[in-house]
């Protein structure tokens, strides 16, 4: 069974630029999550989708971050404009349904200069 796919794996941008990350969850998984993990800390949930609807986006900085999951499968997370403090690893995870164990992708390491 293929795991959660993410791209790109690494990205370096300058502050105020925009960036987008892509995630393809495990086939059949209804729930998709985006996490931000700053160095030395645990992952922090940014947004959770159930199929193509948003379940929780309470910790998403909506002035600069946006995410969508069209057709309830792939998802993109965008940052515009980026700030230095956005430097982190962005992890995508999926689960069969809400409250099931989550399977994580390899992450995208973002560096904002």
């Amino acid at each position, binding site marked *: 069974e293929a795991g959660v796919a993410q791209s790109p794996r690494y990205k370096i941008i300058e502050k105020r630029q925009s960036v987008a990350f892509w995630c393809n969850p495990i086939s059949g998984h209804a729930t998709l999550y985006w996490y931000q993990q700053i160095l030395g800390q*645990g*992952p922090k*949930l940014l947004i*959770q989708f159930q199929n193509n609807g948003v379940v929780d986006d309470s910790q998403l900085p909506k002035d600069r971050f946006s995410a969508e999951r069209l057709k309830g499968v792939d998802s993109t997370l965008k940052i515009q404009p980026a700030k230095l403090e956005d430097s982190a690893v962005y992890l995508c995870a999926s689960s069969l*349904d809400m*409250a099931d164990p*989550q399977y*994580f992708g390899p*992450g995208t390491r973002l560096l904002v200069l």
Partner: protein
Amino acid sequence: SQQGEEDPQALSIQEGENATMNCSYKTSINNLQWYRQNSGRGLVHLILIRSNEREKHSGRLRVTLDTSKKSSSLLITASRAADTASYFCATEAFYNQGGKLIFGQGTELSVKP
């Protein structure tokens, strides 16, 4: 804010020894999960223990949960060099039925051959 706090922050042991990591949390939970993260394989789900369970085993892993003390421990027996990784506890709060997890800051385990 992060709900779980792991203790110790870092742990170094010799191969063959047991490793114990502790997690404390603040609010009532539905379940508590342990994840492992290393550079090679990303974040991997290890074990889930529900609020009405006190102990759970999976291979060399043993997890205990004390809801009265709001704490959990992860024991890895007969450790191997391949167990070197960061270990995170994550809690699903009682008031949340959607699977949202709050991660702690992690324990960095180093197993020396």
